[in-house]
């Protein structure tokens, strides 16, 4: 094998499930020391492609045409033992959700050692020693102790490092990272990917990064393949793609990934001494864990949101941002402080007195599918909160309002009769919004509205929120860790860490000149494509 032999070659590959072809005529190659990005939305066939490269097509898929060569050898003609040796030995896969990829009842050190022993003749103790050595290299602190831990004792980022160690330990020549950092905090994502790519470069491995995040591609990939509906629609060096995508679809993706122009002019004129619509004063919420530990989830938090404005609450998972939102909507009882809504403290109100206020204070939940009753139609779901509104007693009035809401959230009217499981993720989010907006609230808490959505869907949701805000003069609390959407939506930003707000200010100011170290770290972990597309 010369230095120029591609590590991995896919030639006119087609894959079908029954009569349905899911991959059409895919051709791509990976050279040594190259990082290739494969980008596509949900259902584009990225994961099937990755599994095909390991000859592990899930659930009855079969190759109907073309071939895959690994290091010049045709995968289809290899005998089974060599194919097994190739998995993990030559081509290693890193999947999504590291915790689910680890055996829950065994120590992680043993699991990594197992992979090594599957590919080399080694004793258990020696394999374990090498695993621990590698743990240190993938940034696991205190590797000896961690090696003895079970997966449930690790954080998501730590588990992801273990999975990376599993992929690296047999020194393969190709790493396939299939949405490997999905669901991790941005700061962790950057650490993990930096490390992975650095290791690959160091060892001269090739890597294929499969993702729907163009920011990741921009930062790490030499070349990018754009996939859509099982086909590769565009292939280009990353820099060229980012500066001038050749296909309309590529251009559309790129446009969707860009942050929207700076937030709208402040709704309230600076001089006006209008009181804020919502004011949170020294809010406190403690949780007591099973073992009697007190967790200060929200620790003395204060902020104000003027009418018609958006405050973004950003921070990593566990920082307490969702808890703040739930305290505001009174889904959780607070342990101290006050929440003034139109200058009236709502926390002290008895449930009966607060109930009419719920019309004005609504929440859009993080996981739309979980938050929607699966046995109800969209019409019933959207109409339910109208029960809070005495003017909406008549069935006709309700019907009209539901139609209006569907239109407002750009949902086709025919979906009124659909059930949640029949909707796409983007449609579910919209139903969640329509439901929250049905009573025409003055204040809405959005909990991670753009997380885990495809690029274009995310852009649509962001545009929708912007328009809604303009049309309804909404005040919103926008809870997220997606900084791209913060830039596009928020007037001001509050950065939360360990239950406290460490920095707060206007969006432009925070992004341009963060003053707190933690804010700088958060911003540093963002992978905006603007940094690479700017000429």
């Amino acid at each position, binding site marked *: 094998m010369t230095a120029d032999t591609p590590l991995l070659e896919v030639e006119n590959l087609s894959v079908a499930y029954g009569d349905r072809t899911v991959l059409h005529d895919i051709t791509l190659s990976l050279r040594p020391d190259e990082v290739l990005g494969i980008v596509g939305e949900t259902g584009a066939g990225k994961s099937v492609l990755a599994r095909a490269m390991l000859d*592990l097509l*899930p659930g009855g898929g079969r190759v109907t045409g073309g071939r895959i060569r690994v290091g010049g050898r045709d995968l289809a003609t290899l005998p089974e033992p060599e194919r097994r040796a190739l998995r993990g030995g030559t081509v290693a*896969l890193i999947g999504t959700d590291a915790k689910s990829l680890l*055996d829950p*009842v*065994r120590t992680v050190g043993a699991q990594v050692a*197992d992979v090594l022993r599957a590919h080399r003749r080694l004793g258990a103790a020696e394999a374990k020693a090498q695993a621990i050595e590698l743990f240190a290299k993938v940034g696991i602190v205190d590797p000896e102790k961690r090696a003895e831990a079970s997966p449930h004792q690790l954080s998501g980022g730590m588990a992801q490092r273990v999975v990376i160690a*599993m992929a690296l330990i*047999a020194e393969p020549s190709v790493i396939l990272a299939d949405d490997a950092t999905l669901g991790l905090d941005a700061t962790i994502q950057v650490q993990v990917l930096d490390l992975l790519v650095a290791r690959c470069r160091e060892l001269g491995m090739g890597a294929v990064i499969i993702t729907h995040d163009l920011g990741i591609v921009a930062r790490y990939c030499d070349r990018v393949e754009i996939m859509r509906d099982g086909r590769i629609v565009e292939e280009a060096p990353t820099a060229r793609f980012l500066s001038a995508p050749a296909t309309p679809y590529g251009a559309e993706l790129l446009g969707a990934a860009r942050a929207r122009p700076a937030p709208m002019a402040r709704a309230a004129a600076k001089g006006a001494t209008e009181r804020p619509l919502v004011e949170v004063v020294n809010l406190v919420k403690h949780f007591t864990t099973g073992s009697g530990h007190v967790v200060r989830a929200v620790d003395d938090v204060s902020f104000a949101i003027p009418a018609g404005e958006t405050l973004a609450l950003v921070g990593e998972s566990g920082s307490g941002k969702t808890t703040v939102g739930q305290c505001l909507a009174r889904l959780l009882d607070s342990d101290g402080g006050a929440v003034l809504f139109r200058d009236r403290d709502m926390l002290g109100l008895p449930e009966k007195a607060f109930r009419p206020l719920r019309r004005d204070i609504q929440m859009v939940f993080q996981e739309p599918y979980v938050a929607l009753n699966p046995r109800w139609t969209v019409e019933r779901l959207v109409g339910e909160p109208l029960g809070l509104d005495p003017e909406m007693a008549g069935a006709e009035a309700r019907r009209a309002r539901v139609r209006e809401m569907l239109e407002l959230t750009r949902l086709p009217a025919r979906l009124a009769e659909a059930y949640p499981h029949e909707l796409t993720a983007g449609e579910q989010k919209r139903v969640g919004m329509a439901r929250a907006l049905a009573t025409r609230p003055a204040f809405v808490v959005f909990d991670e509205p753009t997380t885990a959505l495809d690029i274009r869907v995310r852009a649509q949701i962001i545009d929708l929120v912007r328009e809604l805000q303009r049309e309804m003069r909404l005040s919103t609390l926008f809870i997220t860790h997606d900084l791209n959407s913060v830039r596009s939506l928020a007037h001001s930003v509050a950065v939360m860490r360990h239950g406290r707000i460490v920095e707060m200010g206007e969006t432009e100011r925070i992004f341009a000149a963060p003053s707190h170290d933690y804010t700088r770290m958060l911003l540093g972990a963002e992978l905006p494509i603007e940094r690479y597309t700017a000429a």
Partner: protein
Amino acid sequence: MTLSDTWRKLPRPLRIVLGRLPMVIPQMFGVIFVTFMLARLLPGDPALLMLGNMATEESIANLRAQLGLDGTLWQQFAHYMLQVLHGDLGISLFTSNPVATDLMERAPATLELVFYSMLLTVLIAVTVSVVAVVRPRGVADYFSRVYGLAAGAIPDFWVGLLLIFLFFSTLGIAAAPFGRIDPLVTPPPAVTGFYTFDSLIAGDLSAFRSSAGRLVLPVITLTIVNAGALMKMTKTTFAEIWRSDFIRHQRASGLPSRWLVRNALRNSLPPIITLVGFLVGFLLGAAVLVETIFSWGGLGQYAVQAVTYSDYPALQGFVLVAAVFILVVYLVVDILYELADPRIET
């Protein structure tokens, strides 16, 4: 604080055992109380029952005093408790032996039967379900489906009689269904009470052959009846884990199939442990029909006899011993369960 720190520092298996063991004391107390109340709730005066219709007032009063039945309920309970703690379970009305002696004689018979049946049940159920899942649409898969359908519907006495008819009466290759050992062979001196173990300890090969041969048919009968449930459950659990992300990831990492099976099986253990524990407790009394057919002379038969002849001390003794045995089984199950799943907090 320091105490809980020391506790945390103990190895996990030790914490599990130490945490679970003390629970046995209140459980035992409860069991003894319930068996005591059970006897009180039964209709009729035990003294009258024991002496029969011809008893005089005086002899009844004497016997009542002797049985400790003349005090208050709590005095009686204390008396009973004391007796139980001394291993005195009363005298059987039917055999005229101390109940404890009777039970000690019969319990090993049943336990030996249950032991080998469970061994075979687990072996067959787990093997078949693993092979059925790993090779779908193979022989094992179809076998497990057909058998799974039939298993719940086969009565044990019918299987036992069928096996006797086929292998003893017709083919003549199986040992006679008359007890645990050939009457012409001397049973080995009791060490464990299991004839197969004791004969090996004594180095008596003819006794071993005879007792092992006698075990074959009843063990197969119980296995055929019980393996179905375990097989169905193991198959479901194992299949789910076999499809899980982490097994797929291990396959993608190039681990050999045998390791994958081992790891998936390790993850399927908790429900298997629970069901096996349940079956052991269940078989203790439920093997009675099989014991009767094979003239086994075990606990189940003794209990039925006790009921038939209104032998209350024997019945009470049986219930107590069975309950204690089940307690011990569940203790072991709980401990194994926690050992098998590190996610359980201890």
